[in-house]
């Protein structure tokens, strides 16, 4: 069974959803699948206007990814441009990445690449809650890995040694 078949199976179970761009006529060059935790945040219903606004800011970034726009992916969890769209979380051997929505309150949407241009977003956190503590970041990554394992068991996410293997149209700066 391929990873795509596994994904389709999880969708039929209701544990994953394919995120469609909000503007239905937008191109669909890349894919984002979301787990329940991320889906609840991205799609609402939201408890207040602030949550709605925050979710829509993030949603614009996700639709940018889906539309196939050029994106930057940092090579190193620590040595990275502040504005990188995606960055690996230490340790890189976990193959866990964060989509970095940097407008405050900043959000990190965390997941793994199932295939090139296919991101599976499983957990999220406000950046301010993560602080600079390695352990909080490690816990976030562990939570993502545990969720991945419960969904896909033996299937491994893509490694990030070659960023061109993760996504098309990478910005090289």
């Amino acid at each position, binding site marked *: 069974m391929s990873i795509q078949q596994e994904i389709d199976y999880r969708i039929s179970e209701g544990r994953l*959803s394919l995120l469609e761009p909000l503007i239905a006529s937008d191109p669909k060059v890349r894919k984002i699948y979301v787990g329940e935790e991320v889906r609840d945040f991205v*799609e609402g219903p939201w408890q207040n206007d602030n949550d709605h606004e925050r979710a829509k800011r993030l949603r614009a970034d996700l639709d940018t990814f889906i539309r196939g*726009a050029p994106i930057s992916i940092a090579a190193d969890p620590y040595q990275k441009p502040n504005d990188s769209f995606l960055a690996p979380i230490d340790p890189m051997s976990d193959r866990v990445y964060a989509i970095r929505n940097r407008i405050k309150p900043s959000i990190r949407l965390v997941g793994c690449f199932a295939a090139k241009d296919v991101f599976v977003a499983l957990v999220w956190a406000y950046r301010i809650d993560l602080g600079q503590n390695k352990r909080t970041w490690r816990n976030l990554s562990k939570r993502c890995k545990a969720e991945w394992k419960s969904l896909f068991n033996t299937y491994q996410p893509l490694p990030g040694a070659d960023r061109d293997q993760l996504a098309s149209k990478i910005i090289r700066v």
Partner: protein
Amino acid sequence: MTNSQAKSFVSEVLAETPISEGNKIYFQERLKSRLHEILVNTFQTAEQQGTITKTELARKLGKRPEQISRWLNSSSNMQLNTLSDMLLGLGYEPDISVRELSDQSAQTASSTVSGIENNETFAPVSWLIVHQVQPNQTNRPIAASTYSNWPNTYRENERINA
């Protein structure tokens, strides 16, 4: 997100009075992202053609290369002045149009939109194409948003109307 939810978003937003801040923010961020996409595509094309490097562009704009990198790296810093300066440094300027917001594909929409001022039927045009500034020559488009992936018939309309 189901397909039916996605298709109803535009209708939902257009039916709002007033439009919610959350939905306004979505479109604000979307515009920044698309402007950024135009900028990156224009720079990458120019760079691949060997006409300019990041360092040369920085020198031309009186900026440090790190600043140019920041502008190219993310849409979060995108402002109209930034876009104008960067395109000018590359020798381009935007050619701006608007299209009706719709859930429909561009090809379908192109035959049904009414003119704003004179009620004539017109095809919606690409929202933004970048033209090279070339005195005494026909301006050539160099980059557009990912809507250049739209069907050929629509792209022909773009050229006619651009």
